[in-house]
């Protein structure tokens, strides 16, 4: 059941009692309830996580290597520092791509400088130089290298920028990008996104030869920004844009290539899905190259239709007419999906806690299936995310920013949603409690969820999560009777 504003307040107060006073005071600012007419969700965000509370957040390295840079498939991304960071983020984000892995693409590989004590003591710059040399010998078809800094790099004073410049010169024309995404920087993944965006600006855009990899522009050239192609999301989005008559010249960064990044300034419009992780580069391209950008949402038919029309509004009547045809073409399939699943999902309550754009963007897709999102929160959102969230949530929605393990467990216990959508660390906690769950970072190894093709999968997945017979088995029958 969803709670009233007052009930939410009481619940938050109750949960905060478990904390020491100082911590309770700080956490109180991150917990709230959306009330109609307010400009944001009434919570503070993008603030340091408190120690010892079991935050769900990651780090700047995760934001840069794991999210923004990692999916660029024809470059080699060195996890620079000790072995762990690269190991734990190795191929775990399901950024689908097509290519000969290990030969001309490297997405599902783990390149690490595997720092030893001597590298900490004497510095790792020499080792990095040697690593780049060895990469050139063993992986000669790579189109560039990024250096993804782990915590020690910034602490021991390595000069990865100097190494990158030197080696870029040595290997004439090679793109080598140093990224200062040490894990201790900032408060979450979010700063890593920003640093990674800035690295594209400084080490790709500002260095590229505009005649390299040239193609003839058309008035319909767009770039997909902020889609990481998880389970193929960018593909099931791209297909719609192309059907509208647009030409997608680049994907950022799922299934992306360095050539696509380099050519993006030729786009007529940047279409931005994950605002949180790539608004920076979109704004930069607007300022420097005059490319307008538009946010869109490809979760669920209602938002897809709205977004397709919004994107089309930037183009001529042909595109607008095509867009209506696209919407009409998929209408019957979508209606069938809704007809099949809505009756099984109508009225079901959902609680979300995810990163990026999803805490708001997926709400429409649930509503298309007759479901209701009664609580949501961002792992690393900023105030502009919570402002944007007001367009999606209903009055009385429970809001929790950078939720702690304790809070999330208590909220779910009290609200008793029919489904929780969050990450791998949360999945089994709630399933043990008997609450159906879907991972909403990795799509629980399913997907795509974007676009019309993705919506059918989304609907089927939510149904199989909630209506699985297993949830009827959690109580032993002899205990039920008692």
């Amino acid at each position: 059941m969803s709670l009233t504003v007052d009930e939410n307040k009481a619940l938050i107060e109750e949960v905060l009692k478990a904390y020491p006073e100082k911590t309770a005071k700080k956490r109180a600012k991150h917990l709230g309830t959306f009330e109609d007419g307010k400009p944001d969700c009434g919570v503070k965000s993008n603030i340091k996580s408190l120690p010892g509370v079991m935050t769900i957040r990651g780090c700047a390295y995760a934001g840069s290597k794991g999210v923004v840079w990692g999916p660029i498939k024809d470059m080699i991304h060195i996890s620079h520092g000790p072995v762990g960071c690269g190991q734990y983020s190795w191929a775990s984000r399901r950024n689908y791509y097509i290519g000969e892995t290990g030969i001309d693409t490297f997405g599902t590989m783990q390149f690490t400088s595997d720092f030893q004590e001597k590298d900490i003591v004497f510095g790792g710059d020499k080792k990095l130089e040697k690593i780049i040399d060895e990469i050139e010998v063993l992986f000669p078809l790579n189109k560039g290298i990024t250096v993804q800094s782990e915590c020690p790099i910034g602490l021991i004073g390595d000069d990865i920028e100097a190494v990158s410049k030197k080696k870029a010169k040595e290997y004439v024309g090679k793109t080598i990008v140093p990224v200062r995404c040490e894990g201790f920087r900032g408060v979450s993944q979010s700063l890593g996104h920003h640093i990674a965006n800035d690295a594209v600006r400084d080490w790709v855009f500002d260095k590229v030869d505009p005649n390299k990899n040239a193609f003839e522009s058309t008035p319909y050239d767009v770039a997909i920004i902020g889609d990481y192609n998880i389970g193929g999301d960018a593909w099931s989005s791209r297909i719609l844009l192309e059907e509208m008559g647009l030409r997608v010249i680049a994907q950022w960064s799922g299934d992306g290539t360095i050539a696509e990044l380099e050519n993006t300034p030729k786009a007529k419009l940047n279409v931005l899905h994950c605002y949180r992780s790539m608004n920076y580069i979109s704004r930069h391209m607007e300022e420097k190259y005059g490319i307008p950008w538009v946010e869109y949402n490809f979760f669920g038919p209602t938002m897809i239709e709205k977004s397709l029309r919004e994107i089309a509004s930037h183009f001529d009547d042909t595109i607008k007419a095509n867009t209506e045809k696209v919407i009409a073409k998929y209408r019957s399939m979508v209606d069938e999906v809704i007809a099949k699943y809505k009756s099984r999902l109508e009225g079901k309550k959902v609680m979300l806690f995810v990163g990026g754009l999803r805490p708001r963007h997926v709400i429409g897709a649930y509503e298309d299936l007759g479901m209701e999102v009664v609580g949501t929160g961002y792992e690393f959102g900023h105030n502009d995310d919570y402002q944007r969230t007001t367009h999606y949530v209903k009055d009385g929605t429970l809001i929790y920013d950078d939720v702690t393990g304790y809070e999330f467990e208590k909220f779910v216990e009290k609200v008793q949603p029919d489904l929780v959508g969050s990450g791998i660390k949360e999945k089994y906690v709630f399933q043990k409690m008997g609450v159906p769950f879907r991972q909403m970072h990795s799509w629980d190894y399913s997907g795509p969820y974007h676009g019309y093709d993705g919506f059918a999968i989304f609907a089927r997945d939510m149904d199989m999560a909630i209506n699985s017979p297993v949830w009827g088995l959690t109580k032993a029958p002899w205990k039920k009777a008692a």
Partner: protein
Amino acid sequence: MPQNVDKVLDHENLFREPEYKAMFDKKRSQFEFRVPAEELAKQIEYAKTWEYREKNFAREALTVNPAKACQPLGAVFAAVGFEKTLPFVHGSQGCVAYYRSHFSRHFKEPTSCVSSSMTEDAAVFGGLNNMIDGLANTYNLYKPEMIAVSTTCMAEVIGDDLDAFIKTSKQKGSIPAEFDVPFAHTPAFVGSHITGYDNALQGIIKYFWDGKAGQGTALTRIPNESINFIGGFDGFVCGNLPEIRRMLDLMGVEHTILCDPSDVWNTPTDGEFRMYDGGTTKAQVEAAINAKATISFQGYSTEKTMKLIKEHGHDTTSFHHPMGVTGTDAFLMKVSELTGKPIPKELELERGRLVDAIADSQAHLHGKKFALYGDPDLMLGMTAFLLELGAEPVHVLSTNGDKEWAEKVQALLDASPFGKNCKAYPKADLWHMRSLLFTEKVDFLIGNTYGKYLERDCGTPLIRLGFPIFDRHHYHRFPIWGYQGGLRVLTMLLDEYFEALDANTNGIGTTDYSYDIIR
């Protein structure tokens, strides 16, 4: 239109539809500016050659696809094995998100662990305040009975002193003075996850035995008849430790398992989330000092721990992941020797059944060539088991095994006629293994989930054994130790063999004369 409501197409089929294929072709030809097909084909073939292999093995700085993780992961594993203990990792918070995800992807279970969430200011001023606030928050929120502290590389680089920080935290009233906070420095740039397991476990035992970091009195040992058992870092822990317990119970041996996460990573779905479940109790750790002997099942995973225990007067024995008949024999005989208890009929019967199973099936494995990689102890145990089956462990590779380890493997290989032309590769990674598999082909590969990329590239069927295993479910619930475990591993090897044989003989009207119904 590709998608179909009656049979929803998932990613593996959806993107094979013609609309998508055409889209991929267009993207590739117009925008990706990939290397020309000829050049690509050339490099694909070149990467399979001896020449490439030599260049690959000449690497000195670059590591590609390693089979190891970092120290704090092992420290979290060790901490999770104690009753109502919350692992607390001092340093950057992203690391903890990674450990929790990593374990949850393997065990399909929750993994509770907190971070002191150090950021830039802590990098400059040290993380003392993070420790003080972090311990207080953890203590109040999650009500553990013990907090086991370890470190990320950030805290190690800036030189935070755990002992002093924890004492200061107590003085500041963050947690009660008597609350147990064992600790271990676990720098990620030294060793691997097994080193971290070792450091953390040693830290916990030392804390309780040697006077709680100066805040209590050291325990005096009064030897008794009990023995301690330590499993080491083990992805199959949920199946293995109960199997060890069962065997020791059958022998009537009084024993303590030091570090037992087999319950907390194996809780039921019954409506209740158990943040803590089972595990070695503090009382058991303390009493364990009195044991007459301590056995480690994985010596490389417990070097410092066993040294500490030996210094306390225990008769110590370190095995290297013993498996199969001979491995289990050696373990049980050692237990019998230490305790004076005979090996009971039940276990003798189990042994006989494993030998029976091997006799039934050995012809299918005899002379088959294997490549294997993983933690150093597992490699020694598995190599011995393969030799026992008459199979040939041609390439034995470990990223976190050193030269001394390689010599040990080599000695094992040299002692068996089936180990001829077989070789150990220390401090090597899976990109090295790729070259080995192309240049010196084997029939099967044994390794963790990441081995699937080698299976794809080299066509060598993968048998999943080791950590992590993300892409197959529930393996960790079954033992691979003991005679029962031997049966399980034998079956896994055979299953893969028969699958491969069937797949190789199912050509209708071409090869299916060998598609036998009885094998």
